[in-house]
């Protein structure tokens, strides 16, 4: 079967990640479906990095469970990852760097003197990565010309000599494998017959692209892992469509700039991680109060505090839902896959504009840096919404916060004749004039919350079900775990279990009705989350009374695997 999980491990800063990316792109260009997972050290040089790519000819929903092929550049890579290698999996290692213990017989080991080939034959130590790609190409039937194409694109810019050396390294690895490695493992990629029109990108890239497609014009941000590459991508691309990117002095300034720009009529957004998101909460209240559209992306990482800057976690849901003072309605949207990063960010910008409300978008490190194949068709249908603007008649006797059925009032922007008003965080009346009257505060608070009620229908509609619509064993997860849960459900369904998973996208407003319907026949509800306490489980309990709930929590900085979800299903099934 064409379904192989490769993992590459080695010293951070020595090209482990770029080797993984080359492997991934080569596979994708050969029309395979790919799905990557990476962890990298918080240090710039040194520390351990690893890159995993799963390859297949069918739709991939997760990074997989155990590893089929481990490429270990050093002892540490072996020590860390060997336990995840399947029985009879392949261990490919740099025999100049270390030797696995002699009793390693549960796997098929191929030692290749990667460093020696790189140093003696090529004269470039770092080319050992490319030598390794040549070996992989030969052993697993990955078309060599795909690597050649990529190497030429990547290295030609750096000069003819670097390019030639890398091509030599690739071939040297390939030839070494032909001459010296006696293949005894069963893994071999069969050519894909079905050609598909896919692109390969990360979650962050898909989000940035989606933002441009939705009409983003001002981006302000402050560097923070794992969100920084959104800013860097936009800094390159946004000016080409007339937009601007500014790196502010901190995250408070970033959200302030976003609100200023949106007040003046442009679509604006910022992206950050937990520490920066924490700093933004005061301004989010202002956005709610002044009803100014804005989008804030939180690429979650391990917290609290500086926590695990390069590892994944779903720990900021409470902050997104409740962070801030006062009754402060905002929309919380969780992105679920790389494809959804594109569509989701468009939805976020649309909701922000249409409802004049802050939309907080939750992604995480697992999704931000995940590369996945996405069908080009996913990028085709883009519907862009704009904010409600006053008509000339309305401007003649303008009331910025006029009460309406939807809670949304026409928004004047500077330059509109007659639209004068002062947006203020102090409580105000329909005409935007200060009012601290009890009745007025009640009316205006209700107005601001009414917008959320209008969105409940959407929340119910866009939640997705995988497997049975009304299962006995029900799973509700959120965010980036969608694919993993879906894969686990599919596998459990093959075994004939009554299983289904509901995956909401809008978490606020909560899809209460949809969840209730989904749970009608459920005997147990599993809630998997990458956090310690079960922040989503608490949210669900606040909306839907259901027992028993089996929480599945982990917070080691790593995503779930399908096996872990399946194991929980088995556990509740037995005790059910």
């Amino acid at each position, binding site marked *: 079967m064409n379904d192989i999980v490769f993992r590459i491990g080695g010293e951070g800063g020595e090209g482990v990640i770029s080797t993984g990316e080359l492997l991934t792109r080569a596979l994708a260009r050969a029309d395979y479906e790919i799905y990557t997972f990476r962890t990298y050290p918080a240090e710039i040089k040194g520390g351990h990095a690893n890159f995993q790519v799963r390859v297949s000819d069918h739709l991939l929903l997760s990074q997989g469970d155990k590893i089929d092929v481990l490429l270990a550049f050093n002892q540490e890579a072996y020590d860390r990852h060997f336990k995840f290698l399947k029985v009879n999996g392949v261990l490919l290692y740099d025999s100049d760097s270390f030797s696995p213990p002699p009793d390693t017989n549960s796997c098929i080991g191929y030692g290749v003197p990667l460093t020696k080939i790189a140093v003696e034959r090529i004269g470039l130590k770092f080319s050992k990565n490319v030598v390794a790609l040549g070996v992989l190409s030969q052993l697993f039937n990955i078309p060599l010309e795909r690597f050649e194409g990529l190497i030429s694109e990547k290295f030609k810019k750096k000069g003819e000599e670097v390019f030639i050396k890398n091509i030599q390294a690739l071939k040297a690895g390939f030839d070494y494998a032909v001459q010296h490695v006696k293949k005894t493992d069963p893994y071999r990629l069969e050519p894909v017959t079905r050609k598909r029109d896919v692109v390969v990108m990360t979650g962050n890239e898909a989000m940035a*692209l989606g933002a441009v497609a939705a009409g983003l014009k001002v981006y302000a941000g402050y560097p923070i892992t794992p969100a920084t590459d959104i800013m860097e991508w936009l800094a390159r*691309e946004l000016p080409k469509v007339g937009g601007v990117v500014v790196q502010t002095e901190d995250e408070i300034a970033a959200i*302030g700039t976003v*609100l*200023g720009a949106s007040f003046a009529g442009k679509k604006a957004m910022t992206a950050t991680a937990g520490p920066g998101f924490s700093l933004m909460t005061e301004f989010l209240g202002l956005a709610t109060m002044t009803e100014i559209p804005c989008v804030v992306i939180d690429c979650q990482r391990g917290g609290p505090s500086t926590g695990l800057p390069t590892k994944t976690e779903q720990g900021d849901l409470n902050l997104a839902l409740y962070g801030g003072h006062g009754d402060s309605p905002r929309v919380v949207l969780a992105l679920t896959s790389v494809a959804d990063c594109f569509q989701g960010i468009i939805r976020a910008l649309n909701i922000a504009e249409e409802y004049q409300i802050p939309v907080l978008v939750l992604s995480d490190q697992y999704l931000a840096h995940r590369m996945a194949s996405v069908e080009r068709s996913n990028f085709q249908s883009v519907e862009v919404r704009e904010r409600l603007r006053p008509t000339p008649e309305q401007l003649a006797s303008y009331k910025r916060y006029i009460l309406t059925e939807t809670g949304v009032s026409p928004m004047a922007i*500077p330059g509109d004749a007659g639209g004068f008003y*002062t947006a203020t965080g102090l409580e105000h009346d329909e005409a935007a*004039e200060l009012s601290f009257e009890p009745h007025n505060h009640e009316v205006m608070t209700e107005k601001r919350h009414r917008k959320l009620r209008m969105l409940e229908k959407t929340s119910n509609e866009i939640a997705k079900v995988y497997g049975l619509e009304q299962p006995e064993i029900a799973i509700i997860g959120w965010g980036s775990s969608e694919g993993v849960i879906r894969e686990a459900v599919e596998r459990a369904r093959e075994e004939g279990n009554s299983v289904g998973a509901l995956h909401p996208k809008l978490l606020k407003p909560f899809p209460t009705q949809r969840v209730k319907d989904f749970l009608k026949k459920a005997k147990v509800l599993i809630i998997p989350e990458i956090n310690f306490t079960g922040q989503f489980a608490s949210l669900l309990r606040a909306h839907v009374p259901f027992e028993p709930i089996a929480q599945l929590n982990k917070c080691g900085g790593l995503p779930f695997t399908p096996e872990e979800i399946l194991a929980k299903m088995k556990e509740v099934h037995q005790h059910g």
Partner: protein
Amino acid sequence: MAEIPLETYKSDVHPVWCPGCGDFGVLSALYKAMHALQLDPTKLVFVSGIGCSGRLPAYVKAYGFHVVHGRTLPVSMGVRLANPELTVVAVGGDGDGFAIGGGHIPHAARRNLDITYIIMDNETYGLTKGQVSPTSQIGHTSGSTPYGNVEAPINPIAFAITYGATFVARAYSGKPKELVDLIVKAVQHEGFAFIDAISPCITFYDTYKMIPQKLASVPATHNVKDKAEAFKLALDTEHLYMGLFYQESRPTFEESVMATVHRAESKGMPKFDDILTAYR
């Protein structure tokens, strides 16, 4: 075009300030400056912080954004980036600008953001009823310093020059003519124009008697391009100089940013499909 009358700039909202508050002087000078410049109120945005001073935008018939405490400058930057046609005037107190928002001034200054920033400096926290501020003198007794302030005040003028503000001035609400004149120049200035406008808080720290004693005009012979001389005047301990200390001409942030955008745009709008193809 017909002249815009002064009254056009006044809103119907009555100021909440205590009678005699220095903020009235700043407001009335602003009306006059806008009138003198014949600014189109439709394209005028006042951004304010939190404090007594922060209430100002509501009293002007123009667009206003009364933001959170200390954050007028980032919001002003957003407004200008979204629409460089708009004239932006940011106002706030000394607490708003130098304490909680102190981290933003260096960046607005070094960027040379093309706005006018008026600090209504009363050496105290008015709205919270009289605590010390970053411009209060040592020894000043207040609600939060009942035994006297032990922290040295900052020097707003030296501070602004150091960080690269391209227009640095001091004014006094009790000298309306000079204040109007400085506001006019500040709005005309292309770049970050900073005015430390002394506007006493009659209720919590009445300096109306003290200020005039020290007040002196920046000497007529002063060359505003001379940074070293400007520092000297700013650091003078005997006089509280009033007027324009320093002015320089440097590309504005918005100009530079828009130049980048125009350069990028001139290569032609990228086709969405081509962007996607790069991810093959």
